[in-house]
């Protein structure tokens, strides 16, 4: 068993295994930090959503908590004006590329964006940015679930599950830059792809991109 260290989050003293990433220590102790791309089982955090910023004592710039190993005496605040600004900005950027319409979204009860908005007092609308429009294309070829790309946040949870847990590798990232997408090899529909329709990727999806049809 690894060494235990004592750290402080928002003034609360917490004991945790040394080297554990701060995000998990906080979440497991009931302290919320926004996050989308982190998965505890993943050996190397992807650090792509940029939502999990915290303020570390002694450091000027906010730090992503999913990449921050805890060490003895570490002291962090989950909120600070700088952290709030970055979270608000990343949130609005993601929303600008996300098809809104929560009322009709199959995941409205479990949506991580709605949770984040509630926890951090953010609004599900764009204040400063124009929406980046993509054509809505829903792949409902699998029997039990569907994939709505216009709601995908590119967190990569499904990709990791598909590759590392299901060991199928039907889902992957394609494209570069603004054209980065989650999709199948050669843009096949899921039914045509190697997808076995195991459904393991559906629950981890934080948004309305992957959903079971009956929940619609």
């Amino acid at each position: 068993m690894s060494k235990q260290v004592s750290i402080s989050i928002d003034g609360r003293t917490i004991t945790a295994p040394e080297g554990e990433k701060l995000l998990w220590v906080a979440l497991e102790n009931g302290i919320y930090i926004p996050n989308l791309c982190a998965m505890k089982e993943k050996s190397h955090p992807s650090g792509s959503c940029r939502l999990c910023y915290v303020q570390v004592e002694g450091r000027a710039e906010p730090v992503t908590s999913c990449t921050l190993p805890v060490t003895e005496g570490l002291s962090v605040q989950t909120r600070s004006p700088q952290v709030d600004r970055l979270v608000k900005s990343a949130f609005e950027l993601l929303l600008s590329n996300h098809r809104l319409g929560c009322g009709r979204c199959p995941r409205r009860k479990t949506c991580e964006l709605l949770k984040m908005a509630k926890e951090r007092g953010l609004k599900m609308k764009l204040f400063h940015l124009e929406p980046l429009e993509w054509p809505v294309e829903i792949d409902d070829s699998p029997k039990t679930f569907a994939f709505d790309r216009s709601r995908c946040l590119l967190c990569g949870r499904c990709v990791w599950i598909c590759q590392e847990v299901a060991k199928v590798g039907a889902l992957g990232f394609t494209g570069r830059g603004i054209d980065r997408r989650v999709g199948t090899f050669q843009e096949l529909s899921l039914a045509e792809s190697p997808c076995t329709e195991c459904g393991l990727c559906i629950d981890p999806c934080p948004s309305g991109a992957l959903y079971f049809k009956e929940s619609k």
Partner: protein
Amino acid sequence: MTVETPYQERYRKLKDSAAAGEEALSRQAVIQVGMATCGIAAGAVPVKEAFVRFIEEKNIDARVMEVGCMGHCYAEPLAIISKPGFPALCYGYLDEDLVERLVEDYLLNDDPCYEFALVALEPNDVFPTLSDFPRGVHEKKIVLEHCGFIDPGEIDHYISRGGYSALAEALSGTPATVLEQVKESHLRGRGGAGFPAGLKWEAAVQAGGGTKYVICNADEGDPGAFMDRSILESCPHQVIEGMLLCAYAIGAEKGYLYIRAEYPLAVKRVRLALEQAREKGLLGSSILGSSFNCDLEVFRGSGAFVCGESSALVRSMEGKMGIPATRPPRLAQSGFRGRPTVLNNVKTFAYIPPIINRGVDWFRSIGTEKNPGTAVFSLVGKVAHTGLVEVPMGTTLRELIYDVGEGVANDKAFKAAQIGGPSGGCLPEAAIDIPIDFDSLQEAGAIMGSGGLVVLDEDDCMVAIARYFLEFTQQESCGKCTFCRLGTKHMLDLLTAITEGRGEPEDLEVLERLAWEVKEGSLCNLGATAPNPILTTLRYFRDEYEAHINEKRCPALMCSELIVYYIEPSKCSKLCSVCVGSCPTEAIYTRDDGLKAIDQDKCTKCDNCLKTCPPDYNAVIKLSPPGLLAEKEGGKGA
């Protein structure tokens, strides 16, 4: 006297035989033609062939040699002629006619044709040397020392000038000594961020034993930057020697030069250099007879700009997508194939042999305290003398542009220096007295980056420039992280709207806020530096943004949506009609009074008419905002 170690002895033999070879040839006239990519692009190949041909025809005892880039790219094709009894002279702007004349008058008849010489390369009584020019006063060559003066395809040229002696010396001591020297030198990495090389190496040493790697980052993806290419094309052995010294210091037996695919000549020359070093026992197993084994090979990069980022580079070498990863761990702990890896820039490695040879004190006496050594720049854009320059850190931007580069080309007014590549910043006249070093540039909002310096003049619109660079980074974003993927896209959309006259007053605030957030929030330095062109132009040239937004006017007359072309009747001549034929869309017509005018509906703003209108008339002008046209045309025919 210190006793020679076996490695030094072996090296001395190599050097003696290299020197003997050179000596034998020094009785002959030698013509060194600059044949790096820059020279070849300017026409060095036919120039070299002309030398060879004329020398053969006239049966002259002379030798034509290919060398790399001397740094005076503006005057290319270039050649240095060394004839016994004369100082070595450098000639520029060569073509076949001039070559024939030089062969005839100089090689055959002892008239050095001083009127065509640019500069002498050694002190003499007849012709000025480099130090007689302002550029020569500032220039201090460490990594470019041999570039342009030796044949990169001849290892003996490098060896006869002391090349690989640092390796022989290092092998005679311990790896710890080399590490200590590099640490003490305070050398900072030249790939952009300025991280102390010695600390990086030390971290790799502390990472424990076992397999380790040394990698040279020659991905150089910045548009306009070509110093790493020039160094590899002109003096590859200095980089190779630097890598070997690093490998020795950290205990690596394998290394790679990651060279971007667009640099075929560099790849070819490096491969040849590696082969020659192997033949001489300077690379491979039991180097110089010691127990140190190390082999290096070329890895050809895949081309994406972001692959120059350290973690993306290593992933792309492992056959994965070239996408940056989070830290920790750093490469020095877990890099290529999960092993401790030192990744340094081409220039960083090229500094190592001179540091070992001449000592830490010598190195630290150059440049400034926190930024020892020199800075290498590719000086391009609207500057009179473009080229590759090396000056001590701490030289001011003004000295670099006005003394070394000889000022702005074509008598135009200086507007800004864009420094640090696409993610650098634009500094105005008022900010160019700052010393060039990692810290001062960062304070001014720019970065050293990899050393691209683009001079901009009065005809450059700063909003359009910011947009141009942002478009590059936006397209090169790997798309992994939120701020860079989406933030650069929104910033680009805003800038496009402003340059097209669709900007709103509140856009500036949104743009500035977003720029700061992308800078602070991005995962890797591509995103974290992408906003620099925006932030610096907003800081120093805000009035230009405001003119675009509030008046729909482009002060530099560059943004095509905000300008119209107009022929000034008072200047146009009935006797001339060159512009009519120059217009690809037949927008120019002859008015009843014989003067020319532009049909705005047909005009595509290609600029042809303005370029062709003879200087005697200069009748074609640009107007901004386009609304000015109505005023002008109101007074039609007047």
